[in-house]
């Protein structure tokens, strides 16, 4: 396994990142998802997109990213063994939001750039300086070190810290301080439904026509 190549980073940056805030909002709205679940799903979604051999056949990256996230969410629910009859009935109804026409995309495009600009503004001064010299003025890390009279390893740390701030700020509405570990706080196990409690568990599932499942 190797790091994703640069052209994929470009594709992710221009085709997927603009939709990440909306993707997170959507995931957060699904039942039983807390912030750490959303973070996990977003990472897994990027992993799928980054390791796909080719993205040329993805005509609608936004819809595709939502589909991947949805499928990963369903897998997570299965792993957590909470596929009660209710959950199955509800989950099969999860609809990925419709792809929006271009005016919305424009807004989405601005939202992500605004968030990034705000995140860069919020960086500590030295980090922001190193970040801007490297990313905006195009100096190499070595050249940034020379320009700021910092060691190369210090410049690298500032760059890393800058990226970390972007990762924390972007798409999450400004949450910056990394949370404490939440392991163990995942979706709790629920007993599998049995034949006898099924009927009571799904008072609304019966009259529903199977056509409405989607």
């Amino acid at each position, binding site marked *: 396994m190797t790091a994703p190549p640069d052209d994929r980073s470009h594709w992710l940056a221009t085709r997927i990142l603009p939709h990440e805030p909306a993707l997170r909002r959507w995931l957060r709205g699904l039942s039983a998802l807390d912030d750490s679940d959303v973070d996990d799903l977003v990472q897994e979604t990027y992993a799928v*997109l980054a390791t796909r051999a080719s993205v040329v056949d993805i005509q609608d990256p936004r819809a595709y990213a939502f589909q991947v996230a949805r499928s990963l969410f369903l897998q997570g629910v299965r792993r957590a063994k909470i596929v009660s009859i209710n959950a199955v009935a509800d989950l099969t109804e999860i609809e990925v939001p419709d792809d929006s026409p271009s005016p919305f995309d424009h807004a989405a495009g601005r939202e992500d750039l605004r968030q990034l600009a705000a995140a860069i503004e919020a960086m500590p001064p030295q980090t922001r300086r190193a970040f801007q010299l490297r990313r905006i003025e195009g100096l190499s890390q070595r050249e940034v070190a020379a320009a700021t009279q910092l060691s190369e390893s210090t410049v690298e740390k500032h760059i890393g810290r800058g990226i970390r701030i972007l990762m924390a700020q972007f798409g999450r509405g400004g949450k910056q301080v990394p949370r404490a570990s939440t392991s163990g706080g995942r979706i709790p196990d629920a007993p599998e439904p049995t034949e006898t409690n099924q009927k009571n568990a799904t008072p609304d599932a019966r009259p529903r026509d*199977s056509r409405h499942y989607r």
Partner: protein
Amino acid sequence: MHDRETADTIDDAASEWAARLDRGLSAAEQQTLEAWLAGDTRRVGALARARALWHHAGQAVAREPAPPVMAEERAPLLSRRRLLGGGATALAAALAGVLVVPHFLGDTETLESGIGEVRRITLEDGSAVTLGPGTTLRHSYDGTRRLVELVAGDAFFEIAHDPRRPFIVLAGWLTLRTLESAFGVRAVQGMPLSVIVSNGQVAIGAKAGGAVRTLDANMRLDAPAAADSARVTRLEPDALQRALAWREGMLAFEGDTLASVAAQFDRYGTARIVIADPSLAREPITGTFAANDPRGFARAIAASLDARVTIDGNAIRLSRKAPAK
């Protein structure tokens, strides 16, 4: 998931790796990175996201106020479409003529997936194939063509462009030929032979020779037995997604009979869905379900059709409830 690494811890490490990648890695660091990435798929995603943010950050500051990015991004897409339009003639020329059935020569390699397994494999030319459950595929490349035979099962191909070597797929009585496209082929016992093109163009003919027909993106060919019974339909995007949902471990249906849906689930595991009642077997099923959870599926269906589900070892039995008087 007991001591599961948190997303934040992963992000910490990913940001450090992104900074190191930006200045270039030593061979030793490259190895360490690969080992780190191999430990958890979320790390792969976190690093990809870190690099995308790093990439995008330049744009955020370089242009204030931010112009609509998407408009700019649209341009290459449009020109690419135009290119495809103009190149269609050249492509048609390359695909034209009788599709001569090639023979397997020299080294062939067999790829297989087990019951219930979905595997994605990158081939030596950069093309990728996703195998559905219980699929067998043979492939043999040489300097003039890339040849694959779908012996049995479901396969989705994403073809890397190589103008000098067409990609040829043999399946059932069909020969498919393409230069660059993405398409699925199903050759499953008891189901009609079918081809679904999601991107690009695929030329399809009979192995026995005769007319060649070009299938464009969003088109489906069902070819039950012989050339005169073949049928081409155009698919709406959501129908295309449904038909190819198996790649993500999902099965999606719209109005399919319970009997045919049950047959698809049977390919994914040892559990078998048995439908006791013929009228139940004809019920239309619509929905998206996890392919590896036939019990969950059966329960959902039982609830919506007011049927009874009985699990007996590997058999999942669906039956009508006693008629209410």
